[in-house]
């Protein structure tokens, strides 16, 4: 529910979006309302400040990284289709609606989710998580008490464990392989926030 002022007509290319992302019309509408809410100055596009206004993100250790994941490299703003595409990664796995043969895989497949996570680490988009990048993420996720040396050693060991081709960086394939060894019950495939119609619960 929400203000009934917006309707599907306001959403450009709604049909294509639905096809591409697998969201239902109701979902899309809700996301559009949310988009409009976030877009304070009604430009039709979101800027980082708009994301920054969400209180909860400031309390998230990797909040800023996630925000920048919405922005394609070089872009300063996010329009609605991009917004939806990113969120589509987190749609529940089991409700894939459209699967035509031309798509290689649905948007919310496991690989795509892992890719998203990978890009959180790999800020410079070179396809590899270097030691420095890993260090940055670790720094963000660990408490202040952890000293630089300890961080270094953790990063060191992490890379050693995962790096198979000995290039001192973790590529996407190595990343995937590590995740696949022991599937953790909390990977996003099962537990996702987007759920049909239940408003905010």
């Amino acid at each position, binding site marked *: *529910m*929400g203000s009934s002022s917006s309707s599907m007509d306001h959403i450009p290319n709604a049909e294509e979006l639905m096809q591409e992302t697998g969201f239902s019309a109701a979902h899309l509408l809700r996301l559009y309302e*949310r988009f409009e*809410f976030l877009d*304070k100055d009604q430009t039709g596009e979101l*800027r980082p*400040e708009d*994301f*920054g*206004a*969400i*209180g*909860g*993100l*400031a*309390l*998230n*250790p*990797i*909040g*800023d990284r*996630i925000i920048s994941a919405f922005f394609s490299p070089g872009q*300063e703003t996010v329009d609605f289709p991009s917004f939806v595409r990113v*969120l589509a990664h987190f749609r529940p796995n089991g409700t894939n609606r459209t699967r035509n043969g031309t798509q290689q895989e649905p948007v919310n497949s496991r690989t795509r989710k892992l890719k998203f*996570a990978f890009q*959180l680490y790999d800020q410079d988009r070179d396809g590899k998580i270097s030691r420095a990048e890993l260090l940055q*993420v*670790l720094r*963000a*996720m*660990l*408490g*202040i*008490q*952890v*000293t630089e040396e*300890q961080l270094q*050693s*953790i990063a060191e*060991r*992490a*890379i050693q*464990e*995962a790096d198979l081709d000995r290039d001192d960086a973790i590529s996407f394939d190595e*990343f995937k392989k*590590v*995740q696949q*060894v*022991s599937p*953790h019950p*909390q*990977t*996003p495939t099962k537990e*996702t*926030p987007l*759920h049909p119609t*239940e*408003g*905010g*619960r």
Partner: protein
Amino acid sequence: CTYKRLSPAFCTLRSSLQNRTRMGLNTGHGSSIKEVPIVTFKWHHVETPYLIALWILVAGLAKMVIEANHHVTNVIPESALLICFGFILGGMVWGADKVQTFTLTPTVFFFYLLPQIILDAGYFMPNKLFFGNMGAILIYAIIGTCWNAASLGLSLWGCHKGGAMGDLDIGLLQYLLFGSLMAAVDPVAVIAVFEQVHVNEVLFILVFGESLLNDGVTVVLFNVFDAFVSLGGSQIDAVEIIKGIISFFVVAFGGSLLGFVFGLLVSLLTRCTKNIQIIEPGFIFVLGYLAYLTAEMLSLSAILSIVFCGVCCQKYINANMDEKSVSTVRYTMKVLANGSETMIFVFLGISAIDKTIWVWNTGFILLTLLFIMVYRFIGVFFLTWILNRYRLVPIGFIDQVIMSYGGLRGAVAYGLAVMLDENKIKEKNLMISTTLIVVYFTVIFQGITMKPLVTWLKVKRAAVTELTLIEKVQNKVFDHVLVAIEDISGQIGHNYMRDKWNYFEEKWMSWALMKPSVRKSRDHVFSVFHQLNLKDAMSYVAEGERRGSLEFIRNESAFIDFKKKFGDEFSEAMPDIMANMSDDHGAASDRRDPVPSVSLEMHEQTMKGMRETEDINTHHLLQQHLYKGRKQHRHRYSRSHFDVNKDENEVQEIFQRTMRSRLESFKSAKMGVAPPKTISKYSKKDQQQKMPNGKSLDRSKSYYSGDEGFTNSVSPFHPAGIENPAFMPDMDPMTPIQIPPWLMEAELDSGMVAPSQRAQVRLPWTPSNLRRLAPFRASAQSNDSFMLADNLTSDFAPSTLKTRECFLFRAIA
């Protein structure tokens, strides 16, 4: 009367004393005086209050003894130990008197011991969590309790018919009555046990909320079946049953509504008590108690009434009342609740040592125990299965087990059992005995085994294979990502009904119930807070001047000795922040050093070589220090501690970091140094200017906010080249700035005078003060730091800014 009649022992004591005192002294009973009494022994005079005070003292001493040794309390919950203590005491009294002089009577329990516990629960209730899960809580409370009652009653009756219990004079209705009094999960017992077992907050609120709300059902069921029993089986027809159902709605909603009204009353009162601040705290207790009694008088649910009174008034009285009054209320609540709980458990123990009440019927008792456990499990699992189809985050298996196992019965059941009419219910003593056994079993046995059970289950469910480091990190990353996506997509925050309620609440209720000065002072506190910020900023600039550039900001990670610098000035305005200062002295070395515990672990393992130990080290390190996601924060209610949520530190750290990095990236979009003279130049200007709504000028990639209003202030800055702030004046004629209200006038004088002094102490670090945004005035608002952060976004209205501050922020850049 609260206690039973004086025992013979006391009579003999008194008479012997009288004999002794007759030698020339007066007993004080009006017998003939022979001479002027110097001192008299007047036991009878003080008897009742003396005994009460003495028992309270004894209960307190018991608690002291028990808490002396933490090793014991880790294994056996305090409540169980108190009951055992009660056994001992009861034994002593029994030995002296041959009759149990002191038992837990329903009057004392329901009127003097229970209300403060429930008020405490309501006042400290995490509202957002509570109402967010209200649907689930109601399902468990209503349907779950009805199921428990019905199933227990019917099963026992069935077994009776089947002959398992021998010869008992109990009819179906009486079984149902018994079932209804045994059905209710007890809030006192639940808290006592769950404090030990740290479960996640959702699980906790489900069980706790259920234990509070099921009183509505229990009262109704008990009264209805009591009436049925009085009427006799023949009189019951459809009308009566329908009346029973209607009475449920009336009792439950009426009680809640009544509590709500009283809550509003308290809030209104505290709005006007500016002149009698010294007795402000009293109002909440008196009105809470009145809420309870009024509901009791109107035969509504008293517990629901007092719960909702506490729940409703929290926010307003915390805002309206003086800081010290709020502290007083909090402490007093805890003292009363803790004290009551202690006494309840001690007396539960004492009440057992009474030969007159004990009737043993193996079948009845054992079957009751069995059925209670079994039906609780069935009920919880079934209801959870239904709920999980509608819940966003399903309730896991372990949680369900804990919920079922945590369905403890306690003193409420016992109180109800004692209230049974023995004329109508011949087997009252059997029921009392059974109730006591059940209570002891759940509190003692289940209490002791709860922790091991949880540990065993969790260990079992934990990953069988050892995760690699990168996996552990990655899992955490996923957790954080999910929480962030929830926030972004507004799943949790944007519920139509909730929005509507928030709007209504802010517009009407806060307006009516909160002091106008408080509504404004929320801004004021921020303004003071940002005066501090500004002072720091000025110190930056001063230091920059001294050093020639502001590069030091990047490299220094020093912390400010805040108290020393600002303590006196701001302790008035922000006492809570000052109170939190102690953890601001945060050089890394001050915090607990993780190494000792690592070495402990190393000691256990055999040293297989450096790589192994390094491995262990890093894994352990990771385990210990990874920030928990929001989902994992602990429950927020405790009988004996205030800020149970130790992750407050974590939240602060994260917030601080985020702000720091945002500030840096904001700063990095600018290149330049602001000579302080620019500031003084504009300090004389008093214009209020607003800047345009950033769009046209926004080329800056940085974003600095925790609030909506401020975001716009970033925009108009020129990203180009080295900025000489001396040229800033060019921007003056532009249209107004929109910057949050907390950037108000600050005194510049002290900032400008001696930069070297300030720089000498230690370097200021703005974000460390920024993090005060999170725990700011914790008592005034909810403890929920997330809600505080949300408040940041919602409370701020863009307003004007004095020119100077605007330039100051540019100056930092």
